């Protein structure tokens, strides 16, 4: 009888601790957003360059760009082109076939609804095959960030996932 009472007390204690911890852990900022960006890669036949078009959510993207530039988070999600270019150059890396680092040239940025579209180019790419890419976009602010990269060449599309847990890791277009 004494043992039973002890067990009951212990069970209530365990339940209380678990319930309190779960309740305390349920933060106010609870939600289940998808922290994702999409980067599309294609060869531009007009100038023989590789074009990267990055789509990201304007709220998160402006926050990380401002942070990178050492500025406060803009209330209207507006950040300067210079700051965007600087952040993208730091977060996206491309290597030519053979491993030589490729320069990113700024092409432009536009906003539609809650999305921001950034375009950069890599000059002198004859074929996407063997080109390597690494992207750490928004890894600084979300540890569950997943960046999707889709490369289209010759009517074939290849998708790659870059996750915050992997850090800066190059993947080759095949």
């Amino acid at each position, binding site marked *: *009888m004494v*043992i*039973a*009472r002890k*067990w*009951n007390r*212990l*069970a209530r204690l365990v*339940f209380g601790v*678990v*319930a309190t911890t*779960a*309740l305390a*852990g*349920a933060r*106010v900022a*609870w*939600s*289940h*957003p*998808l922290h*994702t*960006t*999409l980067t599309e890669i294609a060869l531009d036949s007009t100038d023989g360059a590789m074009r990267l078009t990055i*789509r990201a*959510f304007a709220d998160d993207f402006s926050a990380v760009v401002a942070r990178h530039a050492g500025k406060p988070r803009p209330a209207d999600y507006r950040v300067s082109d210079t700051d965007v270019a600087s952040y993208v150059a730091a977060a996206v890396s491309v290597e030519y076939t053979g491993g030589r680092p490729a320069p990113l040239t700024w092409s432009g940025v536009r906003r539609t*609804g*809650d*999305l921001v579209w950034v375009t950069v180019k890599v000059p002198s790419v004859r074929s996407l095959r063997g080109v390597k890419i690494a992207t750490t976009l928004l890894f600084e602010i979300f540890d*569950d960030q*997943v960046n*999707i990269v*889709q490369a289209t060449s010759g009517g074939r*599309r*290849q*998708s*790659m*996932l870059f*996750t915050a847990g992997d850090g800066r890791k190059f993947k080759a277009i095949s």
Partner: protein
Amino acid sequence: MSDVATFIELGFRHITDLKGADHILFLLALAAIYRFRDWRECLWVATAFTVGHSLTLALAVTNVLNLRPALIEFLIPVTIVATGLENLFVRDRAKTPGIRRYRPVLAGVFGLVHGAGFANYLRSLFVEDIALPLFGFNVGIELGQICVLVLTFTAFMAVDRLIAAARISGVGRTTPVRIRAIAVSSIVLLVATRWAVERAPW
């Protein structure tokens, strides 16, 4: 990696992400009443949830359905609260008529609400080509749910044994499964109620 595999992985990661606890909590609430030998029934209920969830997701990303995000974020914890309450109030399921039929229906209806939760994200990102991402994402969600359920049932088995071992006396005729169901449902209920109150759109 193929396109579909990419989106399967994305869905799988999304459902198994411990920081986005809404889905995991809902699965816990759904599974709380089952014994290990009832796994088929539980899987059927979880699949009904995926079907409901896929349906709304498809309607939302194709712009057929447009729901206010604030309302959806409120309704998601409400579905978890409702599942927890159902677990607590239905005591003897063997005597409750139609129990095997209504629980999958309930899960399917609640799935409709959860699907709208991240529809905006997919709709915004994959403007031109939504079919494949949507299909892969849902397959990933279902696979993720199966993994979560396997882990959940393993944990439940351990808890049931602990309760059975502790039940020397003093807990009456209540079965270990019922005790576990009450404990899990109560915790889930507390957390989801807090979320619902915080997310109330008024």
